Protein backbone atom coordinates (compact mmCIF):
# COMPACT_ATOMS: atom_id res chain seq x y z
CA UNK A 1 0.00 0.00 0.00
CA UNK A 2 1.18 3.51 -0.60
CA UNK A 3 2.79 5.19 2.39
CA UNK A 4 0.42 8.18 2.36
CA UNK A 5 -2.62 5.93 2.36
CA UNK A 6 -1.10 3.92 5.21
CA UNK A 7 -0.47 7.09 7.25
CA UNK A 8 -3.96 8.39 6.63
CA UNK A 9 -5.69 5.08 7.41
CA UNK A 10 -3.68 4.57 10.58
CA UNK A 11 -4.60 8.05 11.80
CA UNK A 12 -0.90 8.19 12.36
CA UNK A 13 -0.42 11.88 12.98
CA UNK A 14 3.02 11.57 14.46
CA UNK A 15 5.08 9.97 11.73
CA UNK A 16 7.28 7.03 12.59
CA UNK A 17 10.29 7.48 10.36
CA UNK A 18 12.52 4.57 9.60
CA UNK A 19 16.21 4.76 9.04
CA UNK A 20 17.94 1.73 7.61
CA UNK A 21 15.03 -0.47 8.64
CA UNK A 22 15.23 0.67 12.27
CA UNK A 23 12.17 2.54 13.50
CA UNK A 24 13.28 5.72 15.22
CA UNK A 25 11.40 7.62 17.87
CA UNK A 26 10.76 11.37 17.72
CA UNK A 27 11.97 13.43 20.65
CA UNK A 28 9.30 15.80 21.99
CA UNK A 29 10.10 19.54 21.86
CA UNK A 30 12.15 20.51 24.90
CA UNK A 31 12.77 16.89 25.91
CA UNK A 32 16.11 16.22 27.60
CA UNK A 33 17.81 13.28 25.95
CA UNK A 34 20.09 10.81 27.71
CA UNK A 35 22.30 10.46 24.67
CA UNK A 36 23.39 13.06 22.13
CA UNK A 37 25.77 12.14 19.35
CA UNK A 38 27.77 15.04 17.98
CA UNK A 39 30.98 16.22 16.39
CA UNK A 40 33.56 18.29 18.18
CA UNK A 41 35.60 20.18 15.61
CA UNK A 42 39.16 21.17 16.41
CA UNK A 43 39.94 24.44 14.65
CA UNK A 44 43.49 24.14 15.94
CA UNK A 45 44.34 21.29 13.62
CA UNK A 46 41.96 21.63 10.67
CA UNK A 47 44.15 22.32 7.63
CA UNK A 48 41.29 23.05 5.23
CA UNK A 49 41.94 20.07 2.92
CA UNK A 50 38.20 19.45 2.25
CA UNK A 51 38.65 15.68 2.62
CA UNK A 52 35.65 15.66 4.99
CA UNK A 53 33.59 17.48 2.33
CA UNK A 54 34.34 15.00 -0.43
CA UNK A 55 34.02 11.89 1.74
CA UNK A 56 30.71 13.19 3.11
CA UNK A 57 29.47 13.77 -0.41
CA UNK A 58 30.64 10.35 -1.56
CA UNK A 59 29.09 8.44 1.33
CA UNK A 60 25.83 10.30 1.41
CA UNK A 61 25.20 10.50 -2.31
CA UNK A 62 25.55 6.71 -2.35
CA UNK A 63 23.78 5.94 0.91
CA UNK A 64 20.25 6.24 2.27
CA UNK A 65 20.41 10.05 2.25
CA UNK A 66 21.20 10.27 -1.44
CA UNK A 67 21.55 10.82 -4.23
CA UNK A 68 22.69 14.38 -3.57
CA UNK A 69 22.09 16.08 -6.89
CA UNK A 70 24.67 18.18 -8.69
CA UNK A 71 23.34 20.45 -11.39
CA UNK A 72 25.51 21.55 -14.30
CA UNK A 73 28.59 19.98 -12.65
CA UNK A 74 30.77 20.82 -15.64
CA UNK A 75 29.06 24.10 -16.55
CA UNK A 76 30.15 27.63 -15.82
CA UNK A 77 27.84 27.85 -12.80
CA UNK A 78 27.72 24.46 -11.11
CA UNK A 79 25.63 23.86 -8.01
CA UNK A 80 25.15 20.89 -5.77
CA UNK A 81 23.89 19.55 -2.46
CA UNK A 82 26.42 19.17 0.31
CA UNK A 83 26.00 18.33 3.99
CA UNK A 84 29.38 19.66 4.99
CA UNK A 85 31.46 22.65 3.89
CA UNK A 86 34.87 23.90 4.90
CA UNK A 87 35.08 27.66 5.01
CA UNK A 88 38.13 29.85 5.49
CA UNK A 89 38.44 32.94 7.65
CA UNK A 90 41.27 35.36 8.29
CA UNK A 91 41.56 36.77 11.80
CA UNK A 92 43.68 39.66 12.99
CA UNK A 93 45.62 42.32 11.11
CA UNK A 94 48.57 41.76 8.81
CA UNK A 95 51.25 40.58 9.49
CA UNK A 96 49.86 38.84 12.58
CA UNK A 97 46.97 37.14 10.79
CA UNK A 98 45.59 33.70 11.44
CA UNK A 99 44.06 31.68 8.62
CA UNK A 100 41.33 29.57 10.15
CA UNK A 101 39.64 26.73 8.30
CA UNK A 102 36.16 26.23 9.58
CA UNK A 103 34.21 23.04 8.81
CA UNK A 104 30.48 23.64 8.96
CA UNK A 105 27.62 21.15 8.99
CA UNK A 106 24.38 20.63 10.89
CA UNK A 107 25.00 21.16 14.60
CA UNK A 108 22.24 18.75 15.72
CA UNK A 109 20.95 21.34 18.20
CA UNK A 110 19.52 20.11 21.47
CA UNK A 111 16.71 22.62 20.91
CA UNK A 112 16.55 22.54 17.10
CA UNK A 113 14.48 25.49 15.77
CA UNK A 114 14.06 23.69 12.43
CA UNK A 115 11.99 20.84 13.91
CA UNK A 116 8.86 22.44 15.44
CA UNK A 117 8.24 24.65 12.37
CA UNK A 118 8.04 21.68 9.98
CA UNK A 119 4.37 21.40 8.96
CA UNK A 120 4.53 17.70 8.04
CA UNK A 121 6.72 16.23 10.77
CA UNK A 122 9.32 15.24 8.16
CA UNK A 123 11.96 17.03 10.24
CA UNK A 124 12.55 15.39 13.58
CA UNK A 125 15.08 14.82 16.31
CA UNK A 126 15.73 11.23 17.29
CA UNK A 127 15.06 10.39 20.91
CA UNK A 128 17.66 7.62 21.06
CA UNK A 129 20.71 9.63 19.97
CA UNK A 130 19.65 13.22 19.34
CA UNK A 131 20.39 13.18 15.59
CA UNK A 132 18.23 15.67 13.65
CA UNK A 133 16.95 14.05 10.47
CA UNK A 134 14.58 14.64 7.57
CA UNK A 135 12.21 11.94 6.35
CA UNK A 136 12.54 12.48 2.60
CA UNK A 137 9.32 10.60 1.90
CA UNK A 138 7.31 13.11 3.94
CA UNK A 139 9.09 16.38 3.11
CA UNK A 140 7.03 18.69 0.86
CA UNK A 141 9.96 20.98 0.06
CA UNK A 142 8.43 24.12 1.61
CA UNK A 143 11.89 25.28 2.79
CA UNK A 144 10.48 26.65 6.06
CA UNK A 145 12.94 24.58 8.15
CA UNK A 146 15.85 26.13 6.24
CA UNK A 147 14.46 29.60 7.05
CA UNK A 148 14.24 28.53 10.69
CA UNK A 149 17.89 27.44 10.92
CA UNK A 150 20.20 30.35 11.79
CA UNK A 151 23.25 28.35 10.67
CA UNK A 152 22.22 27.61 7.08
CA UNK A 153 22.80 23.94 7.74
CA UNK A 154 20.04 22.68 5.47
CA UNK A 155 20.19 22.49 1.69
CA UNK A 156 17.30 21.76 -0.63
CA UNK A 157 18.13 19.04 -3.14
CA UNK A 158 17.20 20.67 -6.45
CA UNK A 159 16.52 17.37 -8.19
CA UNK A 160 14.45 15.62 -5.52
CA UNK A 161 12.98 18.90 -4.21
CA UNK A 162 13.22 17.79 -0.60
CA UNK A 163 15.26 19.27 2.22
CA UNK A 164 18.50 17.50 3.03
CA UNK A 165 21.04 17.83 5.80
CA UNK A 166 23.84 16.10 7.68
CA UNK A 167 22.64 12.78 9.12
CA UNK A 168 25.79 12.17 11.19
CA UNK A 169 26.00 9.17 8.84
CA UNK A 170 23.17 7.48 10.69
CA UNK A 171 23.24 4.74 8.02
CA UNK A 172 26.86 4.03 8.83
CA UNK A 173 27.45 4.43 12.56
CA UNK A 174 25.08 1.58 13.50
CA UNK A 175 25.86 -0.70 10.55
CA UNK A 176 27.03 -3.99 12.01
CA UNK A 177 28.15 -5.17 8.58
CA UNK A 178 30.97 -2.63 8.82
CA UNK A 179 34.12 -3.22 10.87
CA UNK A 180 33.80 -1.52 14.25
CA UNK A 181 36.43 1.13 13.47
CA UNK A 182 34.43 2.20 10.39
CA UNK A 183 31.23 2.86 12.33
CA UNK A 184 31.92 6.58 12.40
CA UNK A 185 30.71 9.45 10.21
CA UNK A 186 32.48 9.52 6.84
CA UNK A 187 33.93 12.96 7.56
CA UNK A 188 35.54 11.74 10.78
CA UNK A 189 37.11 8.76 9.05
CA UNK A 190 38.47 10.98 6.26
CA UNK A 191 40.07 13.71 8.37
CA UNK A 192 43.86 13.34 8.11
CA UNK A 193 44.59 15.50 11.15
CA UNK A 194 41.96 14.19 13.55
CA UNK A 195 40.16 17.52 13.64
CA UNK A 196 36.75 15.85 14.00
CA UNK A 197 35.96 14.06 17.25
CA UNK A 198 32.76 12.01 17.19
CA UNK A 199 30.96 10.89 20.29
CA UNK A 200 28.17 11.20 22.84
CA UNK A 201 28.41 14.66 24.37
CA UNK A 202 26.08 13.59 27.20
CA UNK A 203 28.59 10.95 28.32
CA UNK A 204 31.17 12.81 30.43
CA UNK A 205 33.80 10.15 29.70
CA UNK A 206 33.56 10.29 25.90
CA UNK A 207 36.47 11.76 23.93
CA UNK A 208 34.11 14.43 22.64
CA UNK A 209 33.01 15.54 26.12
CA UNK A 210 36.58 15.50 27.41
CA UNK A 211 37.80 17.63 24.51
CA UNK A 212 35.01 20.16 25.07
CA UNK A 213 35.72 20.28 28.79
CA UNK A 214 39.48 20.45 28.64
CA UNK A 215 40.00 22.66 25.61
CA UNK A 216 37.36 25.33 25.90
CA UNK A 217 34.78 23.91 23.49
CA UNK A 218 32.17 26.46 22.45
CA UNK A 219 28.86 26.71 20.56
CA UNK A 220 28.10 28.77 17.45
CA UNK A 221 25.66 31.68 17.78
CA UNK A 222 24.93 31.07 21.48
CA UNK A 223 22.69 34.17 21.35
CA UNK A 224 19.80 32.18 19.83
CA UNK A 225 19.79 29.48 22.53
CA UNK A 226 19.55 26.58 20.14
CA UNK A 227 22.07 24.64 22.25
CA UNK A 228 24.06 23.10 19.38
CA UNK A 229 25.32 19.60 20.12
CA UNK A 230 28.31 20.08 17.82
CA UNK A 231 30.97 22.25 19.42
CA UNK A 232 34.19 23.83 18.27
CA UNK A 233 37.63 23.83 19.89
CA UNK A 234 39.38 27.20 19.55
CA UNK A 235 42.81 27.93 18.16
CA UNK A 236 45.48 27.85 20.85
CA UNK A 237 49.17 28.59 20.97
CA UNK A 238 51.02 25.32 21.19
CA UNK A 239 54.51 24.91 22.61
CA UNK A 240 56.34 25.43 19.32
CA UNK A 241 59.14 28.00 19.50
CA UNK A 242 58.39 31.29 17.82
CA UNK A 243 61.18 30.99 15.26
CA UNK A 244 60.50 27.37 14.30
CA UNK A 245 58.83 26.71 10.94
CA UNK A 246 55.07 26.94 11.46
CA UNK A 247 55.55 28.51 14.87
CA UNK A 248 53.64 31.62 15.80
CA UNK A 249 55.13 34.99 16.45
CA UNK A 250 53.34 36.74 19.28
Amino acid sequence: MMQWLKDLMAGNFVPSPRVGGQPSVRAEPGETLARQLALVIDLNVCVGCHACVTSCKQWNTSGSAGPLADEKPYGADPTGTFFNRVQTYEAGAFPGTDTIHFPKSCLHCEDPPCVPVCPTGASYKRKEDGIVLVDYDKCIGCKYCAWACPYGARELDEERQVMTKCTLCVDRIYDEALPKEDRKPACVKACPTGARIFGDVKDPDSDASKAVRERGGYSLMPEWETRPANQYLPRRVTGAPADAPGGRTP
Partner: protein
Amino acid sequence: MNPAFSVVFFTTVAGAAQGLVVALALAVLAGLPMAPGFAGIALLVALAMLLVGLGASFGHLGRPERAWRAVLMWRTSWLSREVIVLPAFIGLVALWWLALRSGIETPVLPLAALAVAALLWYCTAMIYACLRFIQEWAQPLTVVNFTLTGLSSGLILASALAALMGEGSLLRVTGPCALAVTLVAWATRMLALRRNAALKPRSTLQSATGIRAQKLVQKSMGMSAGSFNTREFFHRASHAALRQVKVALILLGFALPALLLAWGVLASTPYAFMLALLVQAPGLVADRWFFFAQAQHPQNLYYQVVS
Protein backbone atom coordinates in the same frame (compact mmCIF):
# COMPACT_ATOMS: atom_id res chain seq x y z
CA MET B 1 15.87 36.65 2.11
CA ASN B 2 15.18 36.09 -1.54
CA PRO B 3 11.47 36.86 -1.94
CA ALA B 4 9.60 33.91 -3.45
CA PHE B 5 7.03 35.33 -5.84
CA SER B 6 4.58 32.54 -5.02
CA VAL B 7 4.51 33.53 -1.34
CA VAL B 8 4.50 37.29 -2.05
CA PHE B 9 1.55 36.89 -4.41
CA PHE B 10 -0.33 34.44 -2.19
CA THR B 11 -0.09 36.50 1.01
CA THR B 12 -1.01 39.74 -0.79
CA VAL B 13 -4.01 38.34 -2.68
CA ALA B 14 -5.32 36.22 0.20
CA GLY B 15 -4.91 39.18 2.58
CA ALA B 16 -7.03 41.38 0.30
CA ALA B 17 -9.66 38.65 -0.04
CA GLN B 18 -9.81 38.31 3.76
CA GLY B 19 -10.21 42.09 4.01
CA LEU B 20 -13.05 42.05 1.49
CA VAL B 21 -14.88 39.30 3.40
CA VAL B 22 -14.38 41.15 6.70
CA ALA B 23 -15.70 44.40 5.15
CA LEU B 24 -18.73 42.56 3.81
CA ALA B 25 -19.36 40.69 7.07
CA LEU B 26 -19.24 43.94 9.06
CA ALA B 27 -21.55 45.64 6.53
CA VAL B 28 -24.06 42.78 6.74
CA LEU B 29 -23.90 42.61 10.54
CA ALA B 30 -24.38 46.40 10.74
CA GLY B 31 -27.40 46.08 8.49
CA LEU B 32 -26.06 48.43 5.81
CA PRO B 33 -28.39 48.60 2.81
CA MET B 34 -27.11 46.86 -0.32
CA ALA B 35 -28.66 45.36 -3.42
CA PRO B 36 -29.54 41.65 -3.03
CA GLY B 37 -26.93 40.50 -5.55
CA PHE B 38 -24.02 42.59 -4.26
CA ALA B 39 -22.91 40.42 -1.35
CA GLY B 40 -23.00 37.31 -3.53
CA ILE B 41 -20.80 38.89 -6.19
CA ALA B 42 -18.35 40.26 -3.60
CA LEU B 43 -18.09 36.81 -2.00
CA LEU B 44 -17.45 35.25 -5.41
CA VAL B 45 -14.64 37.76 -6.01
CA ALA B 46 -13.14 36.88 -2.62
CA LEU B 47 -13.46 33.15 -3.35
CA ALA B 48 -11.76 33.51 -6.72
CA MET B 49 -8.92 35.48 -5.13
CA LEU B 50 -8.50 32.93 -2.33
CA LEU B 51 -8.38 30.05 -4.80
CA VAL B 52 -5.83 31.86 -6.98
CA GLY B 53 -3.79 32.56 -3.83
CA LEU B 54 -4.04 28.93 -2.73
CA GLY B 55 -2.84 27.87 -6.18
CA ALA B 56 0.09 30.29 -5.94
CA SER B 57 1.04 28.92 -2.51
CA PHE B 58 1.48 25.47 -4.06
CA GLY B 59 4.08 27.06 -6.32
CA HIS B 60 6.34 27.40 -3.29
CA LEU B 61 6.43 23.66 -2.65
CA GLY B 62 9.03 21.33 -4.05
CA ARG B 63 6.64 18.36 -3.79
CA PRO B 64 3.12 19.83 -4.12
CA GLU B 65 1.57 16.36 -4.44
CA ARG B 66 2.34 15.80 -0.75
CA ALA B 67 0.88 19.12 0.38
CA TRP B 68 -1.87 17.43 2.42
CA ARG B 69 0.79 16.28 4.89
CA ALA B 70 1.24 19.91 5.96
CA VAL B 71 -1.90 19.73 8.15
CA LEU B 72 -0.31 17.20 10.51
CA MET B 73 1.94 19.27 12.78
CA TRP B 74 -0.52 21.97 13.89
CA ARG B 75 0.57 21.49 17.50
CA THR B 76 3.94 23.13 16.87
CA SER B 77 3.98 24.73 13.41
CA TRP B 78 2.34 28.02 12.40
CA LEU B 79 2.66 26.97 8.77
CA SER B 80 0.64 23.85 9.53
CA ARG B 81 -1.98 25.97 11.30
CA GLU B 82 -2.22 28.26 8.27
CA VAL B 83 -2.61 25.24 6.01
CA ILE B 84 -5.63 24.19 8.10
CA VAL B 85 -7.21 27.64 8.52
CA LEU B 86 -6.93 28.70 4.86
CA PRO B 87 -9.14 25.92 3.40
CA ALA B 88 -11.48 26.34 6.38
CA PHE B 89 -11.83 30.03 5.48
CA ILE B 90 -12.39 29.21 1.80
CA GLY B 91 -15.03 26.67 2.79
CA LEU B 92 -16.72 29.16 5.08
CA VAL B 93 -16.86 31.86 2.39
CA ALA B 94 -18.25 29.30 -0.07
CA LEU B 95 -20.86 28.23 2.50
CA TRP B 96 -21.86 31.84 3.12
CA TRP B 97 -22.22 32.40 -0.63
CA LEU B 98 -24.38 29.27 -0.92
CA ALA B 99 -26.50 30.38 2.03
CA LEU B 100 -27.06 33.81 0.42
CA ARG B 101 -28.01 32.13 -2.85
CA SER B 102 -30.50 29.94 -1.04
CA GLY B 103 -31.95 32.98 0.69
CA ILE B 104 -30.75 31.97 4.16
CA GLU B 105 -29.87 34.98 6.28
CA THR B 106 -28.03 34.25 9.47
CA PRO B 107 -25.54 36.30 11.49
CA VAL B 108 -23.65 33.10 12.30
CA LEU B 109 -21.86 32.88 8.94
CA PRO B 110 -20.57 36.48 8.76
CA LEU B 111 -19.55 36.26 12.43
CA ALA B 112 -17.65 33.03 11.76
CA ALA B 113 -16.06 34.57 8.65
CA LEU B 114 -14.83 37.51 10.76
CA ALA B 115 -13.25 35.21 13.32
CA VAL B 116 -11.62 32.86 10.81
CA ALA B 117 -10.30 35.75 8.70
CA ALA B 118 -8.64 37.23 11.78
CA LEU B 119 -7.25 33.81 12.71
CA LEU B 120 -5.84 33.37 9.20
CA TRP B 121 -4.07 36.75 9.34
CA TYR B 122 -2.62 35.76 12.68
CA CYS B 123 -1.40 32.35 11.45
CA THR B 124 0.12 33.80 8.26
CA ALA B 125 1.96 36.55 10.12
CA MET B 126 3.14 34.24 12.91
CA ILE B 127 4.87 32.01 10.32
CA TYR B 128 7.32 34.91 10.01
CA ALA B 129 7.06 36.52 13.44
CA CYS B 130 7.92 33.26 15.26
CA LEU B 131 11.40 32.99 13.69
CA ARG B 132 13.27 34.67 16.53
CA PHE B 133 16.59 35.15 14.75
CA ILE B 134 15.07 36.94 11.76
CA GLN B 135 14.89 40.16 13.74
CA GLU B 136 13.02 42.13 11.06
CA TRP B 137 10.12 39.70 11.38
CA ALA B 138 10.21 38.72 15.06
CA GLN B 139 8.09 41.62 16.33
CA PRO B 140 4.39 42.29 17.03
CA LEU B 141 4.19 44.78 14.13
CA THR B 142 4.45 41.84 11.71
CA VAL B 143 1.02 40.61 12.81
CA VAL B 144 -0.35 44.17 12.92
CA ASN B 145 0.85 44.94 9.39
CA PHE B 146 -0.32 41.70 7.79
CA THR B 147 -3.76 42.38 9.27
CA LEU B 148 -3.97 46.10 8.50
CA THR B 149 -2.66 45.90 4.92
CA GLY B 150 -5.10 43.06 4.26
CA LEU B 151 -7.92 45.10 5.78
CA SER B 152 -6.93 48.23 3.86
CA SER B 153 -6.80 46.45 0.50
CA GLY B 154 -10.02 44.57 1.29
CA LEU B 155 -11.89 47.77 2.14
CA ILE B 156 -10.57 49.47 -1.00
CA LEU B 157 -11.67 46.46 -3.03
CA ALA B 158 -15.10 46.52 -1.38
CA SER B 159 -15.38 50.26 -2.10
CA ALA B 160 -14.30 49.81 -5.73
CA LEU B 161 -16.87 47.03 -6.16
CA ALA B 162 -19.54 49.20 -4.54
CA ALA B 163 -18.58 52.11 -6.81
CA LEU B 164 -18.65 49.85 -9.86
CA MET B 165 -22.07 48.43 -9.02
CA GLY B 166 -23.60 51.72 -7.92
CA GLU B 167 -23.98 50.81 -4.25
CA GLY B 168 -23.91 54.44 -3.14
CA SER B 169 -25.11 53.98 0.43
CA LEU B 170 -22.61 51.19 1.08
CA LEU B 171 -19.82 53.25 -0.46
CA ARG B 172 -20.58 56.14 1.88
CA VAL B 173 -19.53 53.86 4.78
CA THR B 174 -16.77 51.69 3.24
CA GLY B 175 -15.08 54.69 1.56
CA PRO B 176 -14.24 56.62 4.76
CA CYS B 177 -13.44 53.31 6.53
CA ALA B 178 -11.00 52.40 3.75
CA LEU B 179 -9.36 55.81 4.06
CA ALA B 180 -9.03 55.55 7.85
CA VAL B 181 -7.66 51.98 7.81
CA THR B 182 -5.23 52.79 4.97
CA LEU B 183 -3.87 55.73 6.97
CA VAL B 184 -3.41 53.58 10.08
CA ALA B 185 -1.82 50.74 8.02
CA TRP B 186 0.52 53.31 6.47
CA ALA B 187 1.56 54.54 9.92
CA THR B 188 2.20 51.06 11.36
CA ARG B 189 4.11 49.97 8.25
CA MET B 190 6.30 53.07 8.51
CA LEU B 191 6.97 52.20 12.16
CA ALA B 192 8.12 48.71 11.16
CA LEU B 193 10.23 50.02 8.26
CA ARG B 194 11.91 52.55 10.54
CA ARG B 195 12.52 49.96 13.26
CA ASN B 196 13.98 47.48 10.79
CA ALA B 197 16.23 50.03 9.14
CA ALA B 198 17.78 50.78 12.55
CA LEU B 199 18.13 47.15 13.67
CA LYS B 200 21.49 46.01 14.95
CA PRO B 201 22.01 42.31 14.10
CA ARG B 202 22.52 40.22 17.20
CA SER B 203 24.68 37.72 15.34
CA THR B 204 28.11 38.75 14.14
CA LEU B 205 30.85 36.92 12.27
CA GLN B 206 32.48 36.53 15.68
CA SER B 207 29.45 34.86 17.28
CA ALA B 208 28.84 32.78 14.15
CA THR B 209 32.34 31.29 14.17
CA GLY B 210 33.38 31.77 17.79
CA ILE B 211 36.62 33.35 16.59
CA ARG B 212 37.22 36.21 18.97
CA ALA B 213 39.49 38.43 16.84
CA GLN B 214 38.12 41.93 16.31
CA LYS B 215 39.19 41.94 12.70
CA LEU B 216 37.69 38.86 11.11
CA VAL B 217 36.90 38.35 7.44
CA GLN B 218 35.72 35.41 5.43
CA LYS B 219 38.12 34.35 2.68
CA SER B 220 36.07 31.47 1.28
CA MET B 221 32.54 30.19 1.83
CA GLY B 222 33.78 26.74 0.94
CA MET B 223 32.70 26.44 -2.67
CA SER B 224 33.43 28.18 -5.92
CA ALA B 225 29.85 28.47 -7.19
CA GLY B 226 26.38 28.88 -5.76
CA SER B 227 24.36 26.66 -3.47
CA PHE B 228 20.90 26.60 -1.95
CA ASN B 229 22.26 28.88 0.78
CA THR B 230 23.34 31.55 -1.70
CA ARG B 231 20.12 31.35 -3.75
CA GLU B 232 17.45 31.19 -1.04
CA PHE B 233 18.70 33.85 1.35
CA PHE B 234 20.15 36.59 -0.89
CA HIS B 235 17.90 38.77 -3.06
CA ARG B 236 20.82 40.15 -5.10
CA ALA B 237 19.04 43.47 -5.63
CA SER B 238 21.20 46.59 -5.39
CA HIS B 239 20.82 49.10 -2.59
CA ALA B 240 19.45 51.57 -5.14
CA ALA B 241 16.82 49.07 -6.29
CA LEU B 242 15.83 48.37 -2.68
CA ARG B 243 15.44 52.10 -2.02
CA GLN B 244 13.26 52.45 -5.11
CA VAL B 245 11.04 49.55 -4.04
CA LYS B 246 10.71 51.14 -0.60
CA VAL B 247 9.62 54.45 -2.13
CA ALA B 248 7.27 52.62 -4.48
CA LEU B 249 5.63 50.62 -1.70
CA ILE B 250 5.03 53.74 0.39
CA LEU B 251 3.69 55.78 -2.54
CA LEU B 252 1.68 53.11 -4.37
CA GLY B 253 0.73 50.98 -1.39
CA PHE B 254 -0.40 53.70 0.99
CA ALA B 255 0.13 57.39 0.08
CA LEU B 256 -1.51 57.55 -3.35
CA PRO B 257 -4.40 55.23 -2.43
CA ALA B 258 -5.06 57.41 0.64
CA LEU B 259 -5.10 60.54 -1.54
CA LEU B 260 -7.40 58.90 -4.07
CA LEU B 261 -9.70 57.67 -1.29
CA ALA B 262 -9.84 61.17 0.22
CA TRP B 263 -10.72 62.54 -3.21
CA GLY B 264 -13.37 59.83 -3.66
CA VAL B 265 -14.91 60.46 -0.24
CA LEU B 266 -14.89 64.26 -0.41
CA ALA B 267 -15.96 64.64 -4.05
CA SER B 268 -18.12 61.47 -4.14
CA THR B 269 -16.23 60.32 -7.22
CA PRO B 270 -16.76 56.59 -7.81
CA TYR B 271 -13.79 56.39 -10.20
CA ALA B 272 -11.39 57.39 -7.43
CA PHE B 273 -12.04 54.10 -5.59
CA MET B 274 -11.37 51.99 -8.68
CA LEU B 275 -8.23 54.00 -9.31
CA ALA B 276 -7.14 53.47 -5.70
CA LEU B 277 -7.54 49.70 -6.17
CA LEU B 278 -5.45 49.72 -9.36
CA VAL B 279 -2.71 51.83 -7.77
CA GLN B 280 -2.56 49.90 -4.50
CA ALA B 281 -2.32 46.39 -5.96
CA PRO B 282 1.24 46.71 -7.33
CA GLY B 283 2.15 48.78 -4.26
CA LEU B 284 1.21 45.97 -1.89
CA VAL B 285 3.06 43.38 -3.98
CA ALA B 286 6.11 45.65 -3.68
CA ASP B 287 5.41 45.95 0.06
CA ARG B 288 5.38 42.18 0.56
CA TRP B 289 8.46 41.75 -1.66
CA PHE B 290 10.26 44.29 0.51
CA PHE B 291 9.12 42.50 3.67
CA PHE B 292 11.09 39.44 2.53
CA ALA B 293 14.02 41.28 0.95
CA GLN B 294 14.62 43.40 4.05
CA ALA B 295 14.96 40.36 6.31
CA GLN B 296 18.61 39.59 7.01
CA HIS B 297 19.04 35.91 7.73
CA PRO B 298 21.93 35.18 10.13
CA GLN B 299 23.06 32.31 7.88
CA ASN B 300 24.20 34.96 5.39
CA LEU B 301 27.18 35.62 7.67
CA TYR B 302 28.58 32.25 6.53
CA TYR B 303 28.15 32.97 2.82
CA GLN B 304 29.97 36.20 2.07
CA VAL B 305 32.94 35.42 -0.16
CA VAL B 306 33.61 33.06 -3.06
CA SER B 307 37.21 32.20 -3.72
